[in-house]
């Protein structure tokens, strides 16, 4: 066991379910932080806060490992000096709660662009702060130093149909010396809206963290609530949740493939993947009454059962895709120009991917094989089995191949699930009780975590960790010293979203 993991496990276990949270003293937290630089240190998944403490979540050989420290004098010891992946989280915690990360490596504002009515809107001292006056402050960017450097700002309104994000490019001629991403434009105050509502009502906020992963977010949130309250969803709900999740996965991978191929100039392949993506949308709409299956998952089970002709609609879309996919992949293989266009572009080194706990296609294309469906695992996947495709290349081509490799796996899972759907009810009632729970689900973009504290049947505090928290900084790294003209293609291969990270 690594030194950091040993320090965490020695902390008193608080009643977070299904994995305990270890409460550390300030000194032990600091010792843990200092040990995070070690090669065998557990992989940071996220850092978040509530009014009186800060939580850190790690994966230690696949097992979730939680630590927490109490806030003292408005501060807690920073993790970022030893673990750069903590930096954005520390900035978010400061902006939402006012807790300062003592010794943090980057203290610039993150979510707070100076336009909110109050500072630290979720913090304990929020009411005491005077309301803001005056114009929003412009975001601060890192300075560019050196000869012939140009800075170009793109966004927050950029691209034809896109979420808001600002990209600050520092270029030297055609070379992109540095890419800096600035998010937060889509901050909706989701965590604040969840507080004080019953878990079933708060599910609509979890489902709207990120539209392209609405099922995965809804599922991770439901897992957290069910763990906190000791509720087990009925077998039919468990199976149909997986049907929704795998449909969402296939659709998202086809969507990403079409976007990558559009940037690579492969119009025909783009069109065909786009066509099948639309067929998946339609099938989902027929099966569950909503093309994105938003609000389909509810804590305790499901809000919607499968429509009478739903299974047939899904099977038909899968048949059409399975009939054409091998042909499309062959075309991809045979095209020398496409191969040249994608090979070696936006290469993400395995050690960086590991350092930032990358998951999903971004991680798998750089050799990381984890998948939350299997480890830590949740029903019904461990019983069904699953192969997780990985690649070593770390480039645009590898990320595309990983996505396409997952499609037949999800197709197989869907067929198996639809062939053996259990009968029965679709939801278990939730008791108006108290508890703390951590939930996980694997989205098409990687691992989603949700954490909730429920008090007397109401959400007292919550957090959602979208996988792109850790993937945006990796896009910055993958494009360093790349060609400016490759940025759109590389960005499409990462397929990143803003809303889930912006909260």
């Amino acid at each position: 066991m690594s030194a950091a993991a040993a320090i965490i496990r020695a902390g008193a276990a608080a009643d977070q379910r299904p994995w305990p949270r270890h409460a550390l003293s300030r000194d032990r937290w600091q010792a843990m932080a200092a040990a995070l630089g070690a090669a065998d240190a557990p992989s940071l998944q996220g850092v978040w806060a509530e009014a009186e403490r800060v939580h850190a979540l790690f994966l230690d050989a696949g097992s979730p490992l939680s630590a927490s420290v109490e806030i003292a004098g408005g501060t807690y010891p920073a993790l970022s000096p030893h673990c750069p992946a903590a930096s954005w989280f520390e900035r978010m915690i400061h902006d939402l709660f006012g807790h300062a990360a003592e010794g943090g490596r980057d203290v610039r504002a993150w979510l707070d662009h100076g336009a909110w009515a109050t500072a630290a809107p979720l913090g304990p001292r929020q009411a005491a702060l005077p309301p803001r006056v005056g114009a929003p402050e412009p975001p601060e960017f890192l300075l560019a130093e050196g000869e012939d450097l140009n800075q170009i700002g793109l966004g927050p309104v950029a691209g034809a149909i896109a979420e808001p994000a600002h990209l600050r490019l520092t270029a030297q001629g055609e070379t992109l010396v540095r890419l800096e991403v600035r998010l937060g434009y889509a901050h909706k105050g989701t965590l604040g809206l969840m507080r004080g509502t019953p878990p079933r009502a708060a599910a609509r906020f979890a489902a709207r963290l990120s539209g392209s992963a609405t099922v995965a977010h809804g599922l991770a949130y439901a897992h957290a609530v069910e763990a906190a309250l000791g509720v087990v969803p009925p077998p039919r709900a468990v199976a149909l949740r997986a049907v929704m999740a795998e449909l969402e996965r296939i659709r998202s991978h086809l969507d990403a493939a079409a976007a990558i191929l559009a940037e690579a100039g492969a119009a025909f392949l783009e069109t065909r993947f786009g066509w099948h993506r639309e067929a998946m949308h339609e099938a989902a709409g027929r099966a569950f009454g909503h093309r994105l299956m938003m609000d389909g998952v509810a804590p305790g089970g499901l809000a919607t059962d499968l429509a009478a002709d739903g299974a047939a609609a899904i099977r038909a879309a899968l048949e059409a895709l399975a009939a054409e996919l091998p042909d499309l992949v062959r075309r991809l293989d045979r095209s020398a120009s496409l191969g040249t266009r994608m090979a070696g572009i936006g290469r993400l080194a395995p050690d960086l991917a590991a350092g930032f706990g990358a998951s999903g296609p971004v991680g798998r294309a750089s050799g990381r094989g984890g998948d939350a469906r299997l480890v830590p695992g949740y029903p019904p996947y461990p019983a069904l089995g699953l192969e997780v495709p990985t690649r070593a290349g770390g480039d645009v081509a590898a990320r595309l191949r990983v996505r396409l490799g997952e499609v037949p796996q999800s197709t197989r899972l869907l067929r198996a699930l639809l062939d053996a759907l259990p009968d029965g009810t679709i939801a278990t009632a939730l008791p108006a009780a108290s508890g703390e729970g951590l939930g996980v689900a694997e989205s098409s973009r990687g691992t989603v975590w949700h954490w909730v504290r429920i008090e007397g049947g109401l959400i007292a505090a919550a957090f959602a960790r979208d996988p792109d928290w850790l993937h945006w900084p990796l896009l910055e790294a993958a494009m360093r010293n790349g060609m400016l003209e490759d940025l759109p293609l590389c960005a499409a291969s990462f397929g990143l979203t803003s809303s889930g990270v912006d909260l």
Partner: protein
Amino acid sequence: MTIWQRLRHTLRHGPATLPAAAPSAETAAALAARLDAAAQRRLGRSLAIRHVGAGGCDGCELELRALTGIVYDLERFGLRFVTSPRHADILLATGPLTRSMAEALARTHAAMGEPKWVVAVGDCAIDGGVFKGSYACLGGITTLPVDLVIRGCPPTPWQVLEGLRALIEANAAPAR
């Protein structure tokens, strides 16, 4: 790919129109014809749309991207998404208008020439939707004069298309 490969592929896998879209083909044809007449009278050959994501969940964006894909093929109606506000006739906004996006939305609107229309797409663009009352949101596209709202969370691509048709018709009224 050569035209022959494409043809062979189409023969093998069928045409690229969704069977599910078949009942709507008539609506689509009628729509195209009406749009053609109306849009040309006011603004020439086609209407350009500048999208602004004002902080939604990306669900509305997802359906808008689907709208530009082959199955709906927006361009055959003379509607297209553009990146420059200067070339846009319609500002199409999604999201609850987060406070952090208010300035960028205003700037995009100011950069557009006249005449211009504002369309609010999705429940949260209309009144904040589920995000109503948040400290971080302005409760929908409240800072601009909205000409048309398209409901749904998110609206389907067909609903967006039908809504845009209504806008064209309203603004192409005779005696202008």
